[in-house]
């Protein structure tokens, strides 16, 4: 259960960051997700990124919707305020929070159901408005809490656990984010800590809407033969699956690969994911090129990861709205309420 607190004591020689804090200071409550869930690796990456970035945890706000992924903000940064809102509506709540106080860091965590279906509209408009936040989708192609329905990011060819066919094509959220004008778009893999942590650090340092689509396999409902969001699908065909819906190991999933090559990464449980590191000469500022890159590799059954698009010159919401420097929530009566004299003038104008 999410109320299970982790013990606070830690080894006296744990490394400290510039704020004199350990990684433990950035952790949250004990996760209640399935053992081996990719999402826990994403939470760990957020902890690592915030630790390494020396962020004061109380200056971070954690926003989420509903679903397995949206539960995770309880599992990191316990000293931050969090808001677990309604299904698919995190973008609007984050937008409002951002307008009230732009001096905090906002980390939004959502899932593929939360973002690509019920909240697709709100996602699109948060991107369009360039809300200054890190928006992470923990993408597993399935609805976990309601026990394994297809989500809108599940590939057309991907079948359900009982062999059900998926009639509809997938929404590629990274491609959508690029098309909608997000100024920072990346895709990563929950097992690839070495890639994910630097991406998160970059995203948290980015001003504007930073989007990371993290492929984060659902070990319970979408890790079977025939699923393209399973490790097995992208595994090298030389290897055999040892078990469907079975989690043999509980260690953190990690990958390591060389730049510029397509590689099948062997994971701790003998599953694999095919990853493509960005090609040499890839132009990060080319929207159309990024889309073409994603689509052409997708056609080959490959998942493109890494930083896909960056527009460091784009302004964010607060600038677009031409707001004062001080956070709106810091303004008091003196700054906000005109006096009776101003009101008398308005009255006079209405006579």
């Amino acid at each position, binding site marked *: *259960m*999410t*109320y299970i607190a982790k013990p606070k004591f830690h080894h006296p020689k744990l490394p400290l960051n510039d704020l004199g804090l350990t990684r433990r200071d950035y952790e949250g409550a004990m996760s209640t997700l399935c053992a081996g869930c990719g999402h826990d690796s994403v939470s760990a990456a957020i902890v690592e990124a915030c630790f390494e970035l020396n962020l*004061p*945890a*109380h*200056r971070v*706000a*954690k*926003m989420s919707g509903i679903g397995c992924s949206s539960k995770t*903000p*309880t599992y990191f940064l316990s*000293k*931050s*305020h*969090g*808001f*677990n*809102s*309604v299904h698919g*509506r995190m*973008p*609007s*709540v984050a*937008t*409002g*929070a*951002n*307008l*009230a*106080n732009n*001096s*905090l860091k906002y980390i939004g965590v959502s899932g593929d159901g939360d973002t690509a279906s019920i909240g697709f*509209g*709100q996602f*699109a*408009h948060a991107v369009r*408005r360039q809300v200054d936040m890190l928006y992470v989708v923990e993408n597993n192609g399935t609805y976990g809490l309601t026990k394994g329905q297809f989500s809108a990011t599940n590939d057309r060819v991907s079948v359900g656990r009982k062999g059900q066919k998926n009639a509809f094509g997938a929404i590629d959220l990274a491609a959508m984010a690029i098309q909608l004008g997000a100024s920072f778009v990346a895709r990563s893999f929950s097992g690839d800590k070495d890639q994910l942590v630097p991406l998160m650090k970059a995203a948290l340092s980015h001003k504007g809407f930073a989007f990371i689509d993290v492929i984060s396999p659902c070990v319970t409902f979408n890790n079977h033969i025939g699923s393209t969001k399973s490790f097995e699908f992208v595994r090298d065909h030389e290897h055999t699956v040892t078990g469907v819906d079975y989690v043999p190991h509980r260690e953190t999933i990690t990958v390591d690969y060389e730049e510029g090559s397509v590689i099948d990464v062997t994971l701790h449980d003998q599953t694999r994911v095919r990853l493509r590191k960005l090609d040499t000469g890839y132009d990060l500022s080319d929207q159309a090129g990024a889309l073409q890159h994603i689509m052409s590799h997708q056609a080959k059954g490959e998942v493109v990861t890494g930083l896909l698009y960056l527009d460091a010159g784009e302004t964010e919401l607060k600038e677009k*709205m*031409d*707001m*004062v*420097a001080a956070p*709106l*929530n810091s*303004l*008091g*009566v003196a*700054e*906000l*309420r*005109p006096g*009776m004299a*101003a*009101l*008398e003038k*308005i*009255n006079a104008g*209405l*006579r």
Partner: protein
Amino acid sequence: MGVNDFVIKFANVNGSGSASANALFAKAIFRMGVPVAPKNIFPSNIQGLPTWFEVRVNDKGYLGRREGIDMMVAMNPQSWDRDVAEVVPGGYLLYDSTFIREIQRDDIKTIGVPLTKMCNERFTIPRERQLFKNVAYVGALTALLDMDFEVVKGMLSEQFRGKDKLIAPNVDALELGRNYALKYFDCPLDIQVVTSDAVGDRILVEGNAAAGLGCVFAGATVAAWYPITPSTSVAEAFEKYCHQLRIEPETGKKKFAIVQAEDELAAIGMAIGANWNGARAFTATSGPGISLMSEFLGLAYFAELPLLLFNIQRGGPSTGMPTRTQQSDIIACAYASHGDTKHVLLFPSDPTECFDFAVQGFDLAERLQTPVIVMSDLDLGMNEWTTKPFTIDETMGFDRGKVLNAEQLDEVERFGRYLDVDGDGIPYRTYPGTHPEKGAFFTRGTSHDEYAGYTEDGTVNARVMLRLSHKFNTAKTLVPAPEFGQKTQGATMGLIHFGTTAVSVPEAMGMLADSQIHLDTMRLRGFPFSQEVDDFILSHDKVFVVEQNRDGQMRSLLVNECGLDPARLVPILNFDGSPITARTIANMVSEHCGQAVADRSASGVAAE
């Protein structure tokens, strides 16, 4: 029908430029010191369909809508027959005599002015010819009704200040109509406007403009909204007044943020996010938007987040009558959302209260940490009302409620977001980013304990739900108290009303008094109902509940919340989309009492 007491109606074609001429006419009467109630009766359409503008002029201050038209300015051939039929016997029909019209009635007086012909002769640009017809009939009316011509002329100069070239042709058109009327008719008629001081220091303003202005004075900094008639002008007014009053002089930057959201769900989500983060934020909508916002309202109720929401009610259900008025969202708002939810409602009766309830509404929402819904309607929101001037108490700050800052958190041993420390059911909150070590919590709509921790323990959940009930009881003592009328007469029957129904009640009481029917009245201003509401009902044998919906929603709410025998409450209902009239109220009450209201001709309704 008479001096400073009549109803005039303009029948126009939507999009023909009549609105500004008609508004000019109404404002001129107001400027002459005579109370007016102009009402737009408009279609859900941009151009071409019939639209009406009805102005009640009454120096006794009876400004509710009144049946019977004393003078019809019939400019629309599409609606000609029904417009002519609406004129009371002995009333007047002003029409464009350029065209031959068949007038089937011989009990009304006709005034034909060749508006099209005159304007075509005088003006060359086609658009001017069209627009100035409207100004010309106002000109004719100044003569027919003996209005102060200098006032009207002065208003044109004001209206076109900065576009001075337009003043002369407008005055020209005005004089064109005026001179024709003076030449061909026996001016003035028996209905007239005589300069008076009955307006006093009152102002003429729309409820939505007042609400938007109230939000500025309440310190609202974030507004998120989605366009929907009839609420759109709340956000527009907020924006207009913010541009006047909330620009940082040194930088020219905005001390506000207004977002036109992608839908009502996003609008309320943004307002909730901003309030959660310590900025005063609001949204405005109408019935369909309320339906869309319901899930979020439940979240705000359960997670205990302040929010001010304006519901400018229109005709329902579904898309209903988007441009007509009703009070038919009472139940939908009182209990909006799934699960056990209840919301604080405020019922403004005039624009002054729209302003005041915006200011008080934020204080209430933050004090109670819950959504507060201001239940206005189209009639109040989109029409100009003669109303008391706006005031604020400069000695009072904003009541931000129970919010702990960093120093206060240092004093607290263990912060519990949902702990009832003071016994009033209202816990303490913290804004994100306040303290490095203390006060952080996770806001969620799922069941939680007193320390905001997730729990599925039913006992804990029940405890939280009961505390929320207790908080709602506290709200009874904080919402605006009801107002009472004729309390001293000790009548055995009472009448409850609220919102825009109030404007017709004094006149209805006068009519009923003439028939020896005496009632005590109570105007509800807030929900949950305070003890005074129960007491009023229980101290009368029978209580009428007047409302503008089909099902007697306020009556149901009273029966339910006060635990009353339904037989005590008699519904008086109007739900045709037009504002309820005094005569409707009086007729239905007297019918119930088995008595006829003292007979007066429709045109002479004004009570003594």
